[in-house]
């Protein structure tokens, strides 16, 4: 029955979809407007082919090349890896040379495994911190009077338009010895007698947590706000009318209904944070082991392209599940999240 009703609704979208809001219908049945008429139009092929082949060529093919190079060995040459296919003109033979050296190398040295696990952990903690700071902000904006919402939201997005690198740099001053944050924290903690020696924050994993949380916070707030703002306020009034105290109404109504936003925001933070390079490099110091740094070092410092490629492939494998999850969320929301 449910299915039939849905199909009926889809078939009638001209009459009923427009009244209930066109977006969900468009999502479930895209052929509208120019779409289904594409077959009358020679231009359709062009619009389809250009971005499609661009992405195939500049996005998908490169991953295949990364895999190919991960399966070769490093040599002193330009480019610095052994060829996979070798054509011998004398014997007319094509020899294929696949080497798993780079991958097995990742297991011989604890460094790589540690870096992977550490990256996932740091990204995880930072995601939680973003959620803890971002949720009240998003909720406060969604609850604010309508005339306040746009400017407040603007304030959240604004830092995103200024340079990411510069915003990370700002924390070097704040967290360094003598920096405002470090000084304050140390004064308070020593005053309370909790620590005897002043703490070092810059060039520790703590600084990396702070940096990632700071940089990715808007990506958490925006999708959270999008779901919270759409939420029907009368639900909370109904709960309160039925005798539910505000905190429980939040836990049993607001929080579960905002789960899609929490998921979208968390993925937008977690996935790129796992591969983050700049923040651990600038703030984390040598003790903060993250896979983005390892990849960078393998490539730029050791010039070992095969190992760097293997590191990238392995990182991609770690992220396949979250990325697919993200695409599902993205598909459902039709891309309301970022920007």
């Amino acid at each position, binding site marked *: 029955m449910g299915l039939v009703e849905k199909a009926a609704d889809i078939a009638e979208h001209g009459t009923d979809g427009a009244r209930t809001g066109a977006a969900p219908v468009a999502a479930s049945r*895209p*052929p509208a407007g120019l779409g289904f008429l594409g077959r009358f139009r020679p231009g359709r092929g062009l619009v389809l082919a250009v971005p499609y082949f661009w992405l195939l060529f500049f996005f998908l093919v490169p991953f295949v090349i990364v895999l190919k190079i991960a399966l070769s060995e490093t040599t002193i040459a330009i480019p610095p890896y052994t060829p996979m296919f070798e054509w011998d003109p004398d014997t007319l033979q094509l020899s294929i040379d696949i080497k798993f050296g780079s991958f097995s190398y990742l297991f011989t040295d604890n460094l790589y495994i540690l870096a992977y696990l550490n990256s996932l952990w740091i990204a995880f903690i930072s995601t939680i911190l973003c959620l803890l700071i971002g949720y009240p902000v998003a909720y406060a904006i969604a609850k604010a009077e309508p005339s306040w919402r746009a400017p407040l939201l603007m304030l959240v997005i604004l830092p995103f338009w200024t340079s990411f690198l510069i915003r990370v740099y700002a924390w070097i001053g704040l967290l360094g010895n003598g920096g405002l944050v470090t000084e304050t924290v140390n004064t308070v903690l020593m005053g309370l007698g909790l620590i005897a020696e002043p703490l070092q924050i810059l060039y520790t994993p703590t600084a990396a947590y702070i940096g990632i949380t700071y940089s990715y916070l808007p990506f958490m707030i925006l999708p959270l706000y999008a779901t919270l703002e759409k939420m029907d306020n009368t639900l909370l009034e109904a709960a309160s009318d039925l005798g539910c105290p505000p905190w429980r109404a939040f836990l049993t109504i607001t929080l579960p209904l905002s789960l899609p936003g929490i998921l979208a925001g968390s993925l937008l933070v977690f996935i790129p944070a796992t591969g983050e390079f700049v923040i651990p490099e600038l703030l984390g110091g040598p003790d903060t082991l993250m896979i983005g740094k390892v990849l960078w070092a393998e490539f730029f410092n050791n010039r070992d392209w095969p190992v760097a490629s293997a590191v990238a492939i392995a990182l991609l494998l770690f992220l396949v599940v979250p990325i697919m999850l993200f695409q599902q969320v993205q598909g459902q929301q039709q891309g309301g999240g970022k920007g």
Partner: protein
Amino acid sequence: MPRSWFLRFGLLFGLVFLYGPIAMLIFFSFNDIRSVTVWSGFSLRWYGELFNNQQLLSAAWLSLRVAFISACGAVVLGTMAGLLMARFGPFRGRALFAGMISAPLVMPEVILGLSLLLLFVSLEQLIGWPQGRSMTTIILAHITFTMAFVAVVVQSRLVSLDASLEEAAMDLGARPAKVFFVITLPIIAPAIVSGWLLAFTLSLDDLVIASFVSGPGSTTLPMIVFSSVRLGVSPQINALATIVVLIVAIGILIAGILNHRAEKTRARDEQMAQQNGG
């Protein structure tokens, strides 16, 4: 403002967290000693040094050019991709395309950078193009990763656009290409503009991908900033940050004023419509 004190505090804390570091950056850009922790006195010397830093200025010029061209390319490709996703219905390989267009939104930059570099190297081996890494390779890489953002913006605008507008135009005799240029494009123009700005900002800001795909002659501004910051603090960067914030703030202010005016006109129009009655 929200009524709950907890939410007010949460909002305040969030905003202080976001803006405090930026405020400190600006503050110390006017310090007259080489420190970003101890205030000694007001001076503009770091601004002077910044404007005499030839290496930095030429990198900035390169970055601006790269960002401009990439944003234009990304807008064309991203709009096509958004159109494809929102209006083309099912086509063969749609799932693959949806994956390819949304993955760059979250893909770690190190992976994107490495894979693009390896593509360019392999291409050079195979067909002799592109010769080495240059501005061209940075632009190609930036178009690829920023077009996804444009596509998202355009797609969500198209999805919320009443498809019967396009149908009406076609019903009145306009061919599909004309419908797009005369009806769809003017209506989604604001989304395309914000997509362009987004692509421009992302390109201007990118360090990691540019580091992989740039050659010796093509050092972008973030690369210069990064190498100088890596060595420790430099109030010149504070001065640069202040200028960036200033430009962004002016832009936002202008956008805000225009927006406010448009709102006022709209309110007046709506009033007019109501007074007309049936």
